[in-house]
């Protein structure tokens, strides 16, 4: 393992210290292990709190700031945060209007956020939970823990965050967050596995000419292995899965996220976007906005995910609203 670290046990804490040093507009609470807007709590504003395992940066700490999250709780690498952390963050940013928890659908995240929400209720903080489960590589059935939360998390946090920033009420902010999730579908490929600092070796080995199809963001293997094919064909297959799961009609308008998983160069992400734009144009879908880059990552995994979210005027307006965070910044 070659990484720019000191001790594997200190990676999360030392990275948080770096985030705090780089961004004085954020408040990093080392004891409570959360990142918050320095100006939180804001009286009367619905607060957005998210969190999950570390290793997905800039998600979630990099999305804290005006127009997006009020606080983020980073767990150990690929391990959900603990209820105490989530409770501390929720109390720290609650402005009296309630707190929305944005939770990716993984067993550990769901359990820890559920325990935290129960504890928050005991202390008089009202919590609404928005569950993100956009990854269509997983069947939504009794045979699985349900679809995973992946790329759509960014869109949920951006759009619901904008609604909260302009004064939306708790139920409204949660409702638009759920609408974004329901309108989204994602699919991912990996060329190599990421290496967690504690394990010291890649989560799985792949032969030179094979890829993992339908991977998540925690280094877990995908649904199956296939031979590597040209990007054009991989994009076609991913879009088939996405549009099968959440069909789009001619003339539908979408936001597209081409997201690198940490070890994929931008030149490949743009190549993929080019293929994707051609295919969607042929299907008469209008790409209203697009985002290309590394946003929801899996350490140093070489791979990418594609997210397609159907939008209306209201969702587009909220997407375009100002956002000022380390990882996403426009309009301000």
């Amino acid at each position, binding site marked *: 393992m070659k990484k720019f670290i000191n001790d594997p046990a200190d990676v999360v804490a030392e990275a948080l210290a770096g985030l705090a040093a780089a961004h004085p507009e954020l408040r990093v609470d080392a004891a409570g292990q959360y990142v918050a807007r320095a100006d939180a709590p804001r009286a009367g504003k619905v607060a957005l709190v998210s969190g999950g395992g570390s290793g997905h940066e800039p998600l979630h700490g990099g999305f804290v700031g005006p127009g997006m999250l009020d606080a983020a709780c980073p767990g150990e690498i690929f391990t*959900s945060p603990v209820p105490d952390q989530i409770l501390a963050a929720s109390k720290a940013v609650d402005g009296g209007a309630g707190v929305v928890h944005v939770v990716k659908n993984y*067993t*550990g995240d769901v359990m820890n956020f559920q325990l935290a929400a129960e504890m928050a209720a005991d202390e008089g903080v009202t919590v609404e939970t928005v569950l993100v489960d956009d990854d269509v590589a997983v069947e939504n059935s009794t045979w699985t*823990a349900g679809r995973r939360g992946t790329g759509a998390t960014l869109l949920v946090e951006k759009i619901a965050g904008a609604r909260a920033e302009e004064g939306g009420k708790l139920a409204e902010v949660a409702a638009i967050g759920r609408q974004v999730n329901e309108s989204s579908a994602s699919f991912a490929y990996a060329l190599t596995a990421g290496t967690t600092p504690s394990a010291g070796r890649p*989560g799985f080995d792949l032969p030179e000419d094979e890829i993992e199809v*339908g991977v*998540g963001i925690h280094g877990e293997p*995908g*649904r199956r292995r296939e031979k590597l094919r040209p990007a054009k064909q991989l994009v076609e297959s991913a879009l088939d899965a996405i549009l099968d799961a959440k069909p789009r009609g001619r003339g539908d308008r979408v936001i597209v996220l081409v997201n690198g998983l940490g070890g994929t160069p931008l030149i490949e992400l743009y190549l993929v976007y080019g293929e994707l734009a051609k295919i969607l144009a042929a299907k008469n879908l209008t790409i209203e906005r697009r985002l290309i880059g590394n946003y929801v990552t899996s350490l140093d995994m070489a791979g990418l995910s594609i997210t397609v979210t159907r939008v209306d005027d209201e969702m587009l307006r909220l997407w375009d609203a100002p956002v000022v965070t380390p990882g996403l910044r426009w309009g301000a």
Partner: protein
Amino acid sequence: MEVDLAIGWMRATADAVAASSEELTRLDAAIGDGDHGVNLTRGFAAVAAALDAGSFAGVGEVFVTAGSTLISKVGGASGPLYGSALRSLGKALPPGAPVTASDLAAGLHAGLEAVRKLGGAEPGDKTIVDAWKPAADAFEAAVAAGAGLPEAAGEAARAAREGARATTDLRARKGRASYLGERSAGHQDPGATSTALLFRALSEQAGNSG
């Protein structure tokens, strides 16, 4: 069971998990994300520290403290699951010490119910339940047949080990391994494996204390 044995069981579990950390991580890397050994080692080390720092009049308090510590320190799914199991075990026991083997039998079933309620897993889903349920059943059957704690704990340890081994052929239906579908078969479940360590530690400690 006396307070000292309860604490000894938790400490022995911490040692067993630390000694098997690499194996648990290897099993988890095959069908999960490869951190089960590291996370449980971290969690049970915190349990041992919390038990060192506290003083306990009742057996139940030991398990409630251990469970609360796991929930607060581990994260992931294993923290809430093992934490809730131990908390429910502790709460199900009568106050004070000692508690009888049949108290413990009821407590182990309360722990199982907590895991099933929180995780929604049924036997056969390739989870902790597949080791915990046979262990709790074997413990209860042994006690009903007149066995004392050491013998019942031995039966539970054996049943947990066999239950964990039997998860190899199962297809996961809960947790992260479920994303693999059929590919999860052929690998022993790391959670069931750590549960087998927990019951082995109980058997060793109960046997040692006579």
